[in-house]
Each structure stands twice: as C-alpha cells, then as structure tokens.
C-alpha cells in the first residue's frame, strides 16, 4: 500500500516537474561534485535553464564584487558550452580578474545598459538567443513580472541566468518585493582565506555562501574555495568551486532541535 502511494506521488511529482519546465523534459543541472550541496539542489546540481539570484550583504550591495566573482565561478563550466553575456550598468567589471578565476573572458560579451529596465530587457533578449549559455545581469531588484519574463526567456533555449543584485552608488535601498521567480537565491560574502601551511600571503579565495531559497530543494550554508584561481591549471578542474565546509550544520542545528522540541 505504502509502496503504491509513494509510486503515485513520484508520478505526480514528475508531472509537476514537467509542467514547471515548460514541457521540456531535458531540464539539466550542473553538479558541484560534492553531495553535501548537490543533495540540497533539485536534480542534483545547479538547475540550468532557470535564473538564479545572488547578492552580497552590506557594502557589497553597492560593489557586488563577491557575488560577481561567485557567479563567474558558478558559470565557468557553462561558458565552455556557449557564449556568455554580462549586462552591467556601471562599467567596472574587469576581464583580467575573471580570467584569473578561470572564467574565459574571450567567450564573454559585455553590455553596458543605461538603466534598470534596459538591463532587464537586454538580459531577456540574450537569454532567448541561440548559442548563449549564460547571461549575467547586474540589477537592483527583479519584481515578479520581470522575474517571470526572465524565466520564460530562459526556457526558450535553455540558457541560464544569473542576476547579481546591485544598487547604484549613493542610491537608497529599494523595498524588497514580496516574492521572486528565481530558482535559487544565494547570499554571497567573502570569507578569510587559508593559505597552505608554510606559505605567505593569501590563500585561494573563499566565499561564505548561504542558499536562502531553492525551488524544489533545501536551503543551506557552505564555505567554498575557488581552488584553481590564479594559476594556469584553472581550466582543467571539473568545477572551479570546492566545498570546504558545511556551515549550515552549525547554524541550523539549534533551530531544528527547537522545532523538534516544540
């Protein structure tokens, strides 16, 4: 009986997934290669053909350096499958920095939009283009309508969108919208690096990352290291991000025990 019920549930889940994917059965995902995070994500990896939201806390909301670096690392395997487009409003993205992280700048087309609406329109246009695999956009907020439009554009050709949230300098914070159509939302902050024993200077860049929302998956928090950054071997590793530690256990464990007690 219970076996029958779970099978029915499985079938229903598959049906819903097919509906959500807009009728396309081949919704792919990009695994990190570490089950501690892949298990949290639907399909065992970063869902492709969707769009993802990244932001940084505090001053990073204006500079958006860590989220941009993390987005480039997330998308580095995608950039080998097709062209990438990066839409900025403030022209301070620097290609040598991306090259150092292992993102191939020769596959990147940079577009400087004049305002928020234009940036979103360009993103939408690029996502729906054949031959584009990843589209980055630096915008302040994506409301529900814009998010839904991005999602439809993603589904057209299976491109993946990365929205790096960034406030224009000196602007006041906009009130955050109620919902979002993004597949995942990541809060990205830089974390202190740890050079190997006996070495001077900085270690490989580290990021403290919280997966705040994840459609069809679980949230969590992790510490990542860009293990191949700033070396010639960057292009050879399977995924440029290496999971160093699971931060979620430490932070979420008390909350879970509370709930269990209640």
């Amino acid at each position, binding site marked *: 009986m219970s076996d029958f019920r779970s099978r029915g549930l499985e079938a229903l889940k598959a049906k819903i997934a097919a509906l959500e994917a807009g009728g396309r059965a081949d919704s792919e995902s990009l695994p990190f290669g570490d089950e501690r995070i892949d298990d949290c994500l639907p399909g065992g990896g970063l869902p492709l053909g969707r769009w993802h939201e990244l932001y940084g806390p505090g001053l*990073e909301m204006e500079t958006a350096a860590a989220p*941009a670096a993390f987005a480039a690392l997330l998308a580095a395997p995608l950039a080998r499958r097709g062209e990438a487009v990066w839409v900025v409003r403030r022209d*301070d993205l620097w290609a040598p*920095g991306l*090259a150092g992280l292992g993102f191939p*700048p020769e596959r990147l087309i940079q577009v400087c*939009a004049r305002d928020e609406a234009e940036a979103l329109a360009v993103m939408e246009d690029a996502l729906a283009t054949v031959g584009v695999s990843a589209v980055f956009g630096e915008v302040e907020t994506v409301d529900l309508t814009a998010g839904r439009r991005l999602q439809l554009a993603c589904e057209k050709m299976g491109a993946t969108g990365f929205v790096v949230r960034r406030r224009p300098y000196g602007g006041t914070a906009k009130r955050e919208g109620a919902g979002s159509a993004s597949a995942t939302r990541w809060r990205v902050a830089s974390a*202190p690096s740890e050079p190997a024993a006996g070495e*001077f200077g900085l270690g490989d860049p580290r990021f403290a990352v919280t997966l705040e929302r994840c459609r069809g998956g679980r949230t969590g928090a992790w510490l990542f290291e860009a293990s191949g950054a*700033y070396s010639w071997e960057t292009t050879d590793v399977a995924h440029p991000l290496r999971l160093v530690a699971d931060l979620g256990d430490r932070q979420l464990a008390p909350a879970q025990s509370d709930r269990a007690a209640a």
Partner: protein
Amino acid sequence: MEPGSGRDDSDKACPFALVENVRGARRLAAVSLEAARLRLWPGQKVTDAVAVVPDLLTAEAEPEKDAEALSALVDWCVRFSPAVAADAPDGLFLDVGGVAHLFGGEAEMLADFQGRLAANGLPFRCTIADTPGAAWALAHYGADGTIAPPAGQGELIAPLPPAALRLDPDAAAQIERLGLRRIGQLMELPRAPLARRFGQATLDRLDQALGRTKEALTFRRPPTPWVARLAFFEPISAPEDLARVAHDVTAKLCERLEREGQGARKFEVCFHRVDGKALPVAVGLSLPGRDAARVAKLFAPKLETVDPGFGIDVVTIAAFEVEPVSGRQVKLDARKDAAVEDGLAPLVDRLANRLGEDRVWRAVPVESHVPELSVGRAPALNDKPCDQSSWDPEAPRPVRLFRRPEPVEDVLALTPDDPPRQFRWRGRLHRVSRAEGPERLGEEWWKREIEEVSAAHVRDYYRVEDADGQRFWLFRAGLYDPREPAKWWLHGLFG
C-alpha cells in the same frame, strides 16, 4: 561642377562683396556679379574697391560657414551619386560613372541636377567629362553644361587658358607671360622640357586633365557601388510610409547583394526631403549580411528621428564594407549546433543598434603594464579569434576595477614597503589580516617624453584581505620618501 562666383541678386543692382583679412590688409574675398561688372575682383584691397565703387556693400567673409554650407550641399548631392567630393571653397565633384542611367542619361541627369540647384537658388556651372581635371577646366573656363564625349576632353580643353588646369597662380601667370595662352599649346610641347621649365606639378595637372594619370579625390563618404534608390511622384511623410519605403529600398539592394553573393556590414538609408535636406539613418551589422527583413527591422526604431518636413521625395540606400558571403547550408539539428549567424549575430546587432556600438564589446588583452590600459575593447563579434595569452592568470587581478582609484585614509603601514596594517575606505575601517605584495607597476616610460617620466607615477600594488575576508587591491603611489607621508589608493575589489 562649379558654382558661379557669387549669388545673383537680380532685383537689386547693388554691388556686394565679402571682405577678409589677408596678412594685415583688408581685401575682397568674393564679389557679386554686379561688383564684377564694375571691375572689382577678389583679392583687391577694400580701400581701392571703395574708391572705385563708393556704394559697395561689404560683409565679413565666413570661411567656416562656407565650408559647412558646401558639406551640406555635398550631403544633398548623394541623391545623385554616392561618391561626392567637395572642392573647396566653392565646387564639388560628383562621380557619375554608372549612375547616369538611373536618370535616363547624362544630359537628363545634368538638366535635373541644374534644375534642382537653381530651384534652391544656387547658380552652378555644371559640366561632365572623363576626368575631374577636365570637368573642372570646362566648368570654370568652358561653356556651361558641356558634356565631353568619352575620351574627347582633349579637344574641348585645348582652347582654354592654362589657368584652367588648376595650376597655382604664379605658375599660370608665368606660363601666360611666355606666350602660351592655350592648353593646346602646352599639349604640343615636349614633355621633359615642360616639366623642367614649369615644374612637375604642371605636367601632372595636364596629365590628370587628359586622363593620362589618375587623380585621387577625397570623397565625403566612402564610395560604394552598392546603392539603390527609390523616387516618388508624391512626397511621403507618414511614419508607416517611411518604414515601408525603408524596407522596399533595402530589399532592392539586398536582392542585388544576394545575386552577386555579397553581404554588407553597414547600411545607410538617406531620406531626401523636398526642401533639399538629406536625413541619413545608418545601421551596422556585426557579420556581413543581406537579409532585407532583418536590416529593415534594425532601421525601424531609428525612423522616429527622421523629420519628414514637407515630405520626402527620394530615398537612397548605400551598403558599405561589402564582402563576399557564401550561402550557408541549413543545419538539421539547429538547437545543438547553432550557427553564429542565427543567434548571436542578430542579438549583437540588435543591442549595438539600440544601445550604441560602444556599449557592446568583448574585452581583449592589450600589451601594457598599466592595469587600466591592459584591457581593450573589441567588437562583440570578430571574424578572427584573438589570442588571450597576454593576461597572466598567476598575477591575481580584481574582478572590479574602479575607473578612478579611490583614496583611502588612516593607513597604518610600516615603511618602506610593508603592506598596510589597516585602512579606512568609505568610512569603514578595515584591519588587514593577510597581504601579498608589493607588485611594482611602473609607468610606460618608453611611450612618452623622457622629461615627463617621474618616479611619482610608480605604483606598488598589494593584495590584502581584511578580518572579514574581503579582498582589496591597494597601491601606494610614488617611491618611498621619508619626508612625505605615503599616498594610498584602492583600485579594485577581488570579492
């Protein structure tokens, strides 16, 4: 084709002249027909002229305005031929080779041209000949409206004075002083002594007029044989009509491009208004193309800027950067292996034409040690892939580079070249826990004058990480000097 030397002001018989300063003296720059009839001439001193004609009206000459007017006229002439060259100060050359048939022949074209110029109040002397030199000579010294038969310009210019060869006035005066009053006499002289006596320039001008040597004209826009033209019986002005004729004229040209296996990177549609103004609208393609529907779609949003005024009676289109394009085979599995022409090229075209060409680019390495100069911008789609070898991935570079380095305060650093222990940026104090450096980047002294090179332009870069893990790219400007506090700047963020 050449204008008359002044405006004809038929109802007023008042002599009129323009005045300019030539080496400290006030001289006439141009004279009206009436003034010319009273024996005034350009170059005459104003005092002399006023002594001869006391009621002479004068005004200041404005050479810049004249040049502007001439270039506006050149733009207008594009309706007749895509290759128009201004011949300062008061003439212009049209290369009518291959376009006369559009008007029904050279004579009809000349009549149409003269009629339209006269309607705009511009009395021009127009001639057609095989060479620019011969056409100039006939327009200035021959009969108005002369059409020299092919290879027949020699007989026509033979009776003209040597000055008709566009010689400098001294040379022309000298030739005439020696009794050579016609070009025909020059043509009979042996070439070598002629060159020795009057200079190579004289011989060159003669050869150019007779078509023995080529002459380079500076066309206002690059000449292109790829032009098409639509003329209307009734002027049009409705926006939807503009869109339709833009599409029609594009289709006309693209049909020709397709037939000859060519594609173009740049299209320019020019709307010619009834009042003589020409309104050009240009779009660019990242890859050469000839798909009329696609090109017309790029034109559509730009047509709003076209002000039809009292109506538009002629539309021309010219294609530039034309190169062979082979037809491509349709791929069976279009989604997996999409050709650039299908997806990326239209995207880049849409973006570049909507946002502006400078807002869509691909970063390319430039050989330079100065960080802000080491990234160049290339067109988003390039035929030849460029090598990316010059950015060294082992030198850590930030993801965000500020266009202007931002000053940081409250820097604690052990000198001479220890990294900072703490610094304040945007009002927040950062304590440095780890640091790398210095990496000394000097200025490119070999690119400028040796006197301008100074040690103050040297920068010592450090990559530092604060206690929270934020990574910064800081530099100290100049060499260490114990008498002066060091200046620190933040140039980028690693994230």
